[in-house]
């Protein structure tokens, strides 16, 4: 079986985080997705989601990075960059 690409792994892991944090086991993430598209994505769940991402991926997100994230695609790209660095 072909080895999963880093991007696929990130997508899968991130989707699991989103499903858990936003309490929706059917949630499917996509690059254009924003807070407007997800029920329960508010200030509290946003905080929980960021800290889950940091913990799961073993990274620290800086404010200058967070404020550039306009959608889920931007987050996936940032995680890709951090995991590839």
């Amino acid at each position: 079986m072909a080895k999963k690409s880093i991007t696929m792994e990130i997508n899968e892991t991130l989707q699991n985080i989103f499903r858990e944090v936003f309490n929706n086991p059917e949630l499917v993430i996509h690059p254009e997705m924003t807070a407007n598209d997800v029920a329960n994505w508010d200030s509290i769940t946003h905080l929980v989601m960021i800290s889950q991402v940091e913990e799961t991926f073993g990274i620290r997100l800086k404010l200058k990075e967070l404020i550039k994230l306009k959608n889920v695609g931007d987050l996936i790209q940032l995680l890709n960059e951090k995991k590839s660095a």
Partner: protein
Amino acid sequence: MEHLVIEKAKPTDKDFLIKAILEADKSFTDISSYSKLLEMSENELISVFHEIFEEELEGCEFGHEGFAIAKIDGVNAGTCASWIEGADGLPSWQLRTSALFCSVPTENMSLLKKNIETFSSINLPRTPGSLQIESVYLDPSFRGQGIFLELLNFHINFTREQFQCGCRSGVS
């Protein structure tokens, strides 16, 4: 009124702007909701806001870019912030929340769940594309002189000019 000047705030004004954020947030009480929420002293919060202001955030009140200051004979008399909600693609609550997440010590952030009601109250529903006015503060010695109205007119005119010249987009 003596010589009143209203101008956009500069990075060097951050002490006064941070004071405005905290004083406005107190809403005539002794303690700001940020203090209650994060169980931090005012001095600790001031340090947090100094760190946040280093990032020069736009699109919420956590950066000097959105503020205008009223000065009377060179003395800071009052200030308030404005921005167009979501103009750069992110709602202000997301900017505010991210800023706190990155600048507040982890142990204080973990108090959020306990203080969830207070946290919800500082993130009001805001209509995308609309002009927001936030963190209105007038020094007590300059109140009752119509300075806020001057600040408000400044923000409205500045925003109108920005859109007319095509410098900004995203307003409804």
